[in-house]
């Protein structure tokens, strides 16, 4: 398959690295002393340390957070693990009740499952059919021994946006820590941590045009918001995350944050236009339905199911489009999406779901190729379908 013909519409899995950021990272890797260990107490080390601190300030500016409250990690998976295990274990003496949702990313869900095995009591909240969490449900679930709530900002499969301001407010009122997995929203939606009152927030560079393998965890500087570390062995990141800093990676993350801040206002309407174009181009297809709230969904994601179509065959028929079934994480297993199942979709519809996701570098032409290809694929598979097979659209 010729690379040139690929149309990449899988921005929610990972974005291309911005070319200027890639160049700056390359410079850092190749500069005479840009590589030095920031923990080294010599001139080159101090220069590296300055690069790291500049990046910390850039990420802080993106989130309106104090730079010193940010710890650099290897990505959102690690940030989520550190936040959830770290807070739950640190507050275990106060109580062992935790709350999260069934539609969280696996790197959140599996932490809570592990904590359950450790003896914590976890309440799993379901979304409504549109994928949203009713804040009342959360309010009702909080108990005297509740210590931590983890609800993501943008869902990685459907793009559904949770009302994190209300969630944070409820948590604060009840003296419960609130962790937000913002892997899909940081750098894409405005985020003001100080105003929102979030305690813990995870992000990762490769979802907003920065490098893979570079993330951060915000930890609010307030009593009760402390973490047991997950990794031990050095005083980096105020002992929250030891290990030699990956200077070029952190530099890339910082630049991505800076760029995102300046591009937010342009990126969002761009995505909205693209999504509208895509939806208008395919919505009349038989059996098609849209997954996730139509209004409160991030503009960079369109998730659709097609009744009477096999998801894997649809993926193959869509080549050379690069899109996702569910999310990248369960791409290999071929399971149907647990997120859509939790939203009440039938198994058949959930397994046919395709996620289109796009961003800064996506063009109208890309969308037009996607429309054409998607229409062809659905028609092709429709022709193959045994005549009497059910094609009911609703779950």
């Amino acid at each position, binding site marked *: 398959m010729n690379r040139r013909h690929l149309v990449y519409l899988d921005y929610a899995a990972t974005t291309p690295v911005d070319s200027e950021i890639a160049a700056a990272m390359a410079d850092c890797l190749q500069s005479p002393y840009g590589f030095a260990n920031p923990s080294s107490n010599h001139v080159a080390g101090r220069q590296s340390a300055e690069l790291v601190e500049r990046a910390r300030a850039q990420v802080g500016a993106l989130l309106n957070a104090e730079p010193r409250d940010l710890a650099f990690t290897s990505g959102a998976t690690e940030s989520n693990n550190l936040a959830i295990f770290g807070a739950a274990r640190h507050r275990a003496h106060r109580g062992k009740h935790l709350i999260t949702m069934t539609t969280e990313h696996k790197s959140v869900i599996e932490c809570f499952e592990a904590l359950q095995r450790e003896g914590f009591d976890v309440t799993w909240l379901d979304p409504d059919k549109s994928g949203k969490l009713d804040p009342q449900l959360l309010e009702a679930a909080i108990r005297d021994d509740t210590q931590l709530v983890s609800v993501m900002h943008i869902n990685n499969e459907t793009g559904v946006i949770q009302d994190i301001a209300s969630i944070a407010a409820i948590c604060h009122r009840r003296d419960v820590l609130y962790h937000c997995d913002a892997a899909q929203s940081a750098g894409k939606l405005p985020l003001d941590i100080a105003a929102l009152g979030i305690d813990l927030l995870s992000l990762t560079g490769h979802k907003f045009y920065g490098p893979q393998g570079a993330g951060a965890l915000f930890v609010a500087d307030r009593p009760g918001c402390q973490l047991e570390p997950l990794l031990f062995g050095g005083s980096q990141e105020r002992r929250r995350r030891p290990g030699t800093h990956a200077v070029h990676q952190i530099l890339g993350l910082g630049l991505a944050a800076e760029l995102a801040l300046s591009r937010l206002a342009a990126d969002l309407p761009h995505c909205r236009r693209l999504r509208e174009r895509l939806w208008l181009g395919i919505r009349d297809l038989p059996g098609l339905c849209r997954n996730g709230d139509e209004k409160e969904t991030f503009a960079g994601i369109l998730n659709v199911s097609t009744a009477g179509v096999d998801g*894997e*065959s649809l993926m*193959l028929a869509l080549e050379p489009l690069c899109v996702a079934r569910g999310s990248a994480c369960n791409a290999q297993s071929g399971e149907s999406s647990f997120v859509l199942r939790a939203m009440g979709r039938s*198994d*058949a519809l959930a397994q046919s779901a395709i996620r289109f996701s796009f961003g800064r570098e996506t063009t109208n032409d890309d969308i037009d190729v996607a429309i054409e290809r998607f229409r062809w694929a659905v028609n092709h598979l429709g022709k193959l379908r*045994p005549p009497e*097979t059910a094609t009911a659209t609703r779950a």
Partner: protein
Amino acid sequence: MAPQDPYSSLLRQYFVSPVHAGALRGEYSLRLLAKVDDGSGTALQIEAGIDEGTLKELRFHALACPHLIAAAELFCERYEGRQIATLRDFRSIGIARELAIPVSKTGRILLLEDAVTLLLQETGNET
């Protein structure tokens, strides 16, 4: 461990251009239909147009994964023009090899074997 493309180029070809997809076009003295499904959404049906013990035309419909679609197409292509009796020796594993279906996924095309078996039973009933 190397991540392979799970679809061979032959598989892709049969998947994209399944010329035997659809309903029978000709007129035959005997028309048989075998319908199978796995109870969880995957469905396959094979139609055979038969004259004098010969599979004159084979057609299929499928709501299935790419492997099964390609396998059904390959089956139809291969057995058109053959005697019904040759179906007795049919095993999906041979097709799995031809299409280079990864071992972990060969189970996916067992439904084809079920459909062929059903077809044979139907011919037995008719003759």
